[in-house]
C-alpha cells in the first residue's frame, strides 16, 4: 500500500511539474526573444540602445534629423520658447557639424548629440545623481533633482548638453524641460520604451540606424560587425552608444 501511495504521489508530482513547465515555458521563451518590455517592468541591461551614423550618406545641406528632434521634443523651431535667450544661450539637443580635413580639404557632415556613453563623465561628476544612465544605456537628466550647477556641461567631451536660461511653457509630455536645469538628447526614450525608433532616425533612415548593440542579431550589430563604426574621442575610453562610419 505504501508503494502504491508513493507511485501515485510520484505520478501526480511529475504531471504537476510537466504542467507547470508547459505553462511557464512560452513566457520564458518569449522573454528571451522579444526586445520590447512590458510597460510595468524596469528596463534591463540586456539591451544597450545605440545609433549608427553613416557620414558618407549624411548630406551637408540636410537638417532633417535636427528638425525632427526639435518637433519631437519641443525645442528650437519646435517650440516658441527661449525667446529671451541669446543664440549662444538657446538649447541644442542635436546639431549638424561640418568637418574639413586640414591636410586634404575633404569635407564631411555629421549629426552630433549626446553619445550615450557607457562610462559617462556627466554622470560621474553630477553631485546629486540627477545625471544618470539607465540600465539600457540611455543617459538622461532627472529634472527633479538637477540643481543647475552645470558641472556635467563642463565634463561632457561632446558639448552635448544645454542649460535652460529662462522660463519654459507648454512643454511636451514626452520631453519635460524646466528653467535652471540641464538637458540633452534623451534618445527619444519614450519612443524607445514604446518600441519605436528615435525621431532623428525615423527622419533619416538612409544615414541613421537605431538598435540594440547587445543583440548580435540586430541590424545595427550586424552592420557594425561587418563595416565597423568609430567612436568620437575613443581615446577617452567612454564606449559611446553612438557610432560613426566614415570618420
Amino acid at each position, binding site marked *: 500500500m505504501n508503494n502504491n501511495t508513493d507511485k501515485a504521489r510520484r505520478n501526480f508530482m511529475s504531471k504537476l511539474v510537466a504542467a507547470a513547465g508547459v505553462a511557464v515555458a512560452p513566457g520564458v521563451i518569449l522573454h528571451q526573444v522579444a526586445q520590447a518590455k512590458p510597460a510595468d517592468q524596469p528596463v534591463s541591461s540586456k539591451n544597450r540602445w545605440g545609433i549608427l551614423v553613416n557620414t558618407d550618406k549624411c548630406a551637408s545641406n540636410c537638417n532633417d534629423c535636427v528638425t525632427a528632434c526639435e518637433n519631437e521634443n519641443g525645442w528650437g523651431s519646435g517650440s516658441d520658447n527661449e525667446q*529671451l*535667450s*541669446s543664440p*549662444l*544661450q*538657446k*538649447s*541644442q539637443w542635436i*546639431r*549638424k*557639424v*561640418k*568637418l*574639413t*580635413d*586640414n*591636410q586634404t580639404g575633404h569635407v564631411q557632415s555629421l549629426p*552630433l548629440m549626446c553619445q550615450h556613453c557607457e562610462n559617462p*563623465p556627466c*554622470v*560621474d*561628476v*553630477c*553631485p*546629486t*545623481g540627477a545625471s544618470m544612465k539607465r540600465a539600457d544605456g540611455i543617459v538622461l537628466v532627472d529634472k527633479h*533633482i*538637477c*540643481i*543647475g*550647477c*552645470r*558641472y556635467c*556641461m*563642463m*565634463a*561632457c*567631451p*561632446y*558639448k552635448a*548638453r*544645454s*542649460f*535652460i*536660461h*529662462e*522660463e519654459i511653457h507648454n512643454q511636451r509630455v514626452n520631453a519635460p524641460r524646466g*528653467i*535652471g*536645469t*540641464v538637458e540633452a538628447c534623451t534618445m527619444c526614450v519614450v519612443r524607445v520604451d514604446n518600441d519605436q525608433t528615435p525621431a532623428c532616425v525615423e527622419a533619416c533612415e538612409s544615414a541613421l540606424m537605431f538598435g540594440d548593440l547587445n543583440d548580435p542579431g540586430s541590424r545595427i550589430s550586424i552592420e557594425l560587425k561587418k563595416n565597423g563604426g568609430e567612436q*568620437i*574621442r575613443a581615446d*577617452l575610453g567612454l564606449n559611446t552608444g553612438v557610432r560613426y562610419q566614415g*570618420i
Partner: protein
Amino acid sequence: MKKITFSEIEGWSSGYLALLAILGAIVLVGLGSAFYMEHHGHYVTGMNNQIVWGVPHVFAVFLIVAASGALNTASISSVFGKVAYKPLARMSALLSIALLVGGLMVLVLDLGRADRLIVAMTKYNFKSIFAWNMILYNGFFAIVGAYLWMLMDARLGKKFARPVGFFAFLWRLALTTGTGSIFGFLVARQAYDAAIMAPMFVVMSFSFGLAILLLILLASYKWSGREFGDALFTRLKNLLGIFVAGVLYFVIAYHLTNLYAAEHTGVEHFILLNGGIYSNMFWYGQILLGSLVPLALFYHPTWGKSRLLVGLGAALVIIGGWFQMYVIIIGGQAFPLVLFPGKTVESSFSDGIINSYTPTLAEFGLGLGGFATALIAVALAVKVLRLMPTSLADADVDPHYKK
C-alpha cells in the same frame, strides 16, 4: 614674549560704522543680483551654453581657495609650533570661515535651481568631486569652528588646540585639493585634466589667504589704533612673498608641461599668445601685477618696509589671483573642445571657435556681494569676540625681541 591679551574692538567710531554701511550695501547689491538672476533665469547673465561658468564662479572659487589659505597662519602656530604666529591664530581661523561663507554664498546663489539646495544636501553621488566638496565644506565649518573654540578657551585649548589644529590643517589641504580637482578631473577639456591643478590650488590658497589676512591686519590695526610691530609684519610679508613665488613656480610647471605636448599647444598658444583678453589677463594681470610687482614690493630693501607699499602688494596679489581664476575658469572654457583632431569644425553650436563671453553687472554684483559678506562677517566678529590681540608690538609678540 609676554602673555597675549585679546579684546573686542570698541566698534562705535564713525569710520567703523561707515565700513559696515558700505559692506552692507555691497551685500545687498549681491543679494539683489542673485534675486534678479533667479527671478528671470540665467539669460540675464553673460553665461551661455559654451561658457557655462562665469564671473560668479571666478569669485566663488577664489573665495573658497582663499578661505582654506587664510587658515594657514593658525596652522603654522598650532601644527608647526611657531609661536610668533600664535597671536594671529584666532583671526586666521575666523577669516577662513568668513571667506568660505562668502564663496559658498556666491556658488549656491548662482545655481540654476538655488531653491533645490536641500536636494544637494540630501542626495549624494559619491563619485562626484562636487559631492565630496559639499562634505568637505560643511566639515570645514565644523572643524574650524571647533578649532576657533579651542583657540579661545584657555583651559580646553591647552589640551586640544594642537590636535584639533592638526586635524583642521589636514582637512583644509583636502578641501583645496578637492577644489583644484574640480578642474583637474575634467578629462575632455584641453586646459584642465591635469593632476597639478590640485597642488597648484593649494599653493594659490596659501598666497590668496595670507594676502587677505595681511591686508585685514594692516587695516584693522591702523583703524583701531592698536600697534602692529615690524617683526610680525616683516615675517608675514616675507612669507607671502614665498607663497607668491610658489604659485609662480606651479604656473610655470603647468604651462611648460602643456607646451611640451603637441596636443595641448593649441590651448597654450591661446592662453599665452593670441587669446586676446585672456592672454592680457595672464601676462599683465596674473604675472606682472599679481606676481612680479608684489615680489618686488615685498623684497625691495626700502619698499618692503613701507606698510603702504606692502599693503598695495597684498592687494595686487588678490587682484592677480582673481585674474588667474578668470584665466583658468573662463579662458579654459573659451577654448573649443577638440573633437576631431586635424580637422576644422563648424556648426550652429559654436563648435571649433573661440567662445565669447561678456559678463553682466549682475554677475559682478553677486561675486562682490560674496566678498563683502566675508568682510562684514569679520568686521562684526572682531566687535563681539576677542579675536584681535590688543597689541602686536614687537615687545609683546616677537619671541626674539631684544630691548
